[in-house]
């Protein structure tokens, strides 16, 4: 006997800052039935463990902590007739928008008029950066340490070394200092900090925690528990410099070495992914290469501010609702590529003739007194030019083009 197939207008996968906003965006744009799937027992995603201040400046015009930001969005979702399913894991997504879900009611099939992907990201691990040495206890990704300390009241060690200067690592340096853990230093392989400058100042400098650039951990030592790490300087090719090794005794190593959009479901649906972002290739409506499937938040590209993930969620939810109602974008797309010093620009596709499109982009290295140009690849026409006194890879930036774009364009950063 065939399993019954339920249906909904919009299915949102993931209940963090992007997914919550997507469910709201879909409702506000008139979607009838909206289901929000979250695999954890509670909504909010990573916000729940981000107890620090600094969220909400753009969405709520005040600075609040992660849990407060989450609760406010959750309250908005609860006021709407949105069906929230927590403890529900979406196992599979097909290109014709059939979801296979392991839910509290068991295994179910749901056909969605439109789908919003908001699964977030996960952290890179020791294995992915291949640090040699033993495999003792005491090695944590910064986010898992944050979970243990902030949500489970566990002490992760007495003396910690942090590899990588991503924002979570910086935030955790301060958190550990508050908990009386000696933070021996933050080591960053690049010549610049990868986290926000504000965090370098308020999380490291305030507590006299050293930040060593162009250096990395080359070995982990210890049998049952981390006993020390060996750090070394690196050369211009990021290779360790022989003779520069230093042993740092510690019993915990935190890794803050990057985030990866979690796109296993996207791959199953056959969605085209970008090697530059690790997320889906999308058009200006945030629709992926699979019709009716939209993407937003950290599963699309890594954000440094939760508010931008939510704004993307609102937009993706609204577009999903309109797609579910039968609206189709005009065909004919132009491709957008990343030019000089641009790590990526998003969206990567735009409907030909579309005006008023806004791009998010990141630069590849810190840049000063530069101009960002969006230039036609055929005609050489500059569609938009914006000057920046400074640009950092850690800061997602935006640029908008007023006029209609009719040819492939390149986003470039010029000195």
């Amino acid at each position, binding site marked *: 006997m065939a399993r019954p197939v339920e249906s909904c207008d919009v299915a949102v996968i993931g209940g963090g800052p992007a997914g919550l906003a997507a469910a709201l965006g879909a409702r506000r744009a008139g979607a009838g039935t909206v289901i929000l799937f979250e695999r954890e027992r509670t909504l909010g995603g990573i916000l*729940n463990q981000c*107890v*620090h*201040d600094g969220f909400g400046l753009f969405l709520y015009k005040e*600075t*609040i*902590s*992660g*849990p*407060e930001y*989450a*609760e406010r969005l959750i309250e908005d979702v609860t006021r709407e007739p949105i069906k929230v399913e927590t403890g529900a894991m979406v196992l599979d997504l097909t290109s014709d928008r059939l979801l296979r879900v392991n839910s509290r009611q068991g295994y179910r099939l749901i056909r969605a008029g439109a789908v919003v992907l908001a699964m977030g990201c996960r952290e890179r691990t020791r294995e992915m950066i291949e640090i040699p040495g033993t495999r003792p206890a005491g090695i944590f990704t910064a986010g898992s340490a944050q979970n243990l300390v*902030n*949500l*489970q*009241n566990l002490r992760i060690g007495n003396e910690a070394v942090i590899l990588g200067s991503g924002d979570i690592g910086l935030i955790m340096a301060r*958190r550990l200092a*508050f908990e009386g853990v000696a933070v021996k230093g933050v080591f960053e392989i690049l010549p610049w900090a990868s986290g926000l*400058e*504000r965090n370098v*100042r*308020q999380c490291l400098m*305030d*507590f*006299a925690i050293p930040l060593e650039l162009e250096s990395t951990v080359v070995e982990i030592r210890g049998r049952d528990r981390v006993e020390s790490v060996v750090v070394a300087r690196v050369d211009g090719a990021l290779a360790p410099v022989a003779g520069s090794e230093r042993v740092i005794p510690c019993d915990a190593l935190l890794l803050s070495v990057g985030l990866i959009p979690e796109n296993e479901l996207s791959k199953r649906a056959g969605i085209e992914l970008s090697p530059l972002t690790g997320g889906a290739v999308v058009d200006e409506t945030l629709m992926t290469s699979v019709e009716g499937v939209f993407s937003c938040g950290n599963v699309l590209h890594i954000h440094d501010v939760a508010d931008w993930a939510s704004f993307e969620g609102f937009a993706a939810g609204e577009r999903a609702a309109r797609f579910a109602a039968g609206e189709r974008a005009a065909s004919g797309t132009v491709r957008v590529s990343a030019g000089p010093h641009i790590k990526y620009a998003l969206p990567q596709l735009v409907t030909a003739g579309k005006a008023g499109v806004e791009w998010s982009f990141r630069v590849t290295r810190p840049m000063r007194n530069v101009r960002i140009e969006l230039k036609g690849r055929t005609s050489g026409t500059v569609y938009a030019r914006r000057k920046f*006194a*400074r640009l950092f890879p850690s800061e997602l930036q935006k640029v908008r083009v007023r006029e209609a774009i009719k040819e492939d364009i390149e986003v470039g950063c010029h000195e």
Partner: protein
Amino acid sequence: MSERALVDRMTCVLCPVGCELEVGKDAAGELQVKGHQCDKGLPFAVEEVLHPMRNLATSVPIRGTAARMVSVRLSRPVPREMLFPILKEIAKLRPEAPVRRGQLLIADVLGTGADVIATRTVA
């Protein structure tokens, strides 16, 4: 940590322009700020050098519920040197569920004028 040289470089974080500020002392011992493109930058730099203000967030164990912790923060920033003394006060807290987001846990902590408030609802 409390003592630092009265000459500092910083990026202004008040808006996305991010002016790079240099704070120096002139011959008369007056603080001089360079690099700000608007008039908010000067008081920002002087405050950051003379008495930097910080907010504080942490979490404390909670009783009477499945959740182990409730997160807390200050209602407004306090002088940076007050962070560790305030952490000691927060460490004495043993709130009992239910706790509501925004609930007052310590009023005017150590006379700073800032309250310690819960930042999540624990039923």
